[in-house]
């Protein structure tokens, strides 16, 4: 049981760590794939916005 719980904890830590790392080094698609002139602003809460 300890091995199982430790496995779940470790997997969660790695997943959260990777999400923070990728969030820090990657641009959201609405920034990466548009120019400033074409950007109408924060696209809000959706799959491509800053808050995902």
């Amino acid at each position, binding site marked *: 049981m300890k*091995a*199982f719980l430790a496995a779940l904890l*470790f*997997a969660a830590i790695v997943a959260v760590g990777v999400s923070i790392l990728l969030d820090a080094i990657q641009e959201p698609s609405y920034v990466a794939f548009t120019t400033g002139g074409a950007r109408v602003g924060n696209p809000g809460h959706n799959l491509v916005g800053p808050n995902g």
Partner: protein
Amino acid sequence: MASFGRFIRLAVGACAFLLVIAASVPCNAQQVNPTASSVKEQQLLQELNRIQGRVSIPDQRSGVLEQPAGRDWREFRNVTLRWIGGIAILGTIAVMVIFYLTRGMVRLESGRSGRTLVRFTAFERFVHWMTASCFIVLAISGLNITFGRPLLLPLVGFDAFSEWSQWAKYAHNYLSFPFTIGVVLIFLMWIAGNIPNKVDVDWLKRGGGIVGHDHPPAYRFNAGQKAIYWIVVIGGGAVAVTGYLLMFPFYLSGIEGMQLAQIVHSIVSVLFIAAMMAHIYIGTIGMEGAFDAMGTGEVDLNWAKEHHSLWVEQEQAKGHTPSGSTPRPVAAE
């Protein structure tokens, strides 16, 4: 003379009129199409295999207007993949149900001895459960991508399906990393015991003892477990590589490469899921005493002798003696 001149003028006028009529006939018969000789869409596709232009936004790849291979890929994703996945998964479930109803649980024929041997260390179980738990989440969230829209969406509605799918996608992306770590550790940890040998040939010839009540000898891992190991290593490696190609689009491949990656990823995944369902079956309700190996890390000595007799001999030769209470009498064969 004057009448001759009039005749000439009349004749020239009539000829001119006929010429005008004759020249106007083709115009009435057929409309002139100014783009008739321009390049057609089909010709462009045949020459270039895609139609693309230039765009003013940073991502020049968005200039691709038509890529016919995408239609083939969409057909695969929306139709072919669902058939492959459905047959693989439902077929495996059907086989397991039939097998369970006919063969039942593979019992410990000599009963439990009360003495145990260490089969897997705490670290091995940690790696197994980390990989397994990630795999289950990856499998469910991955199946949602293929089957969620036709099967789940009608049941839960758009809002719930959107919310669930968004979180499932996050889980799919981020849990792939501990899963990949697990696959690499499994490869390194158990490679020594999973090289095929002659014992495996004999084990396979005797049906692994699954059918009937035979117990062919095996070392630490029998041929069936070795098959699972290589499915995990090769299948897990394939889904990891193709998955990262999709997670980081255009870093290493173009759109065709990503379509190919998605095809490989999805086919290997559904077959992987089917194989793991069989693995879970035999490790739980399919065989008495098997779950202990990954549950507590220790297996009953009689279980080990029945299913891994050569491994027991190796362990005893190393001085790894069974622990536990005094052995109970072994049931008569």
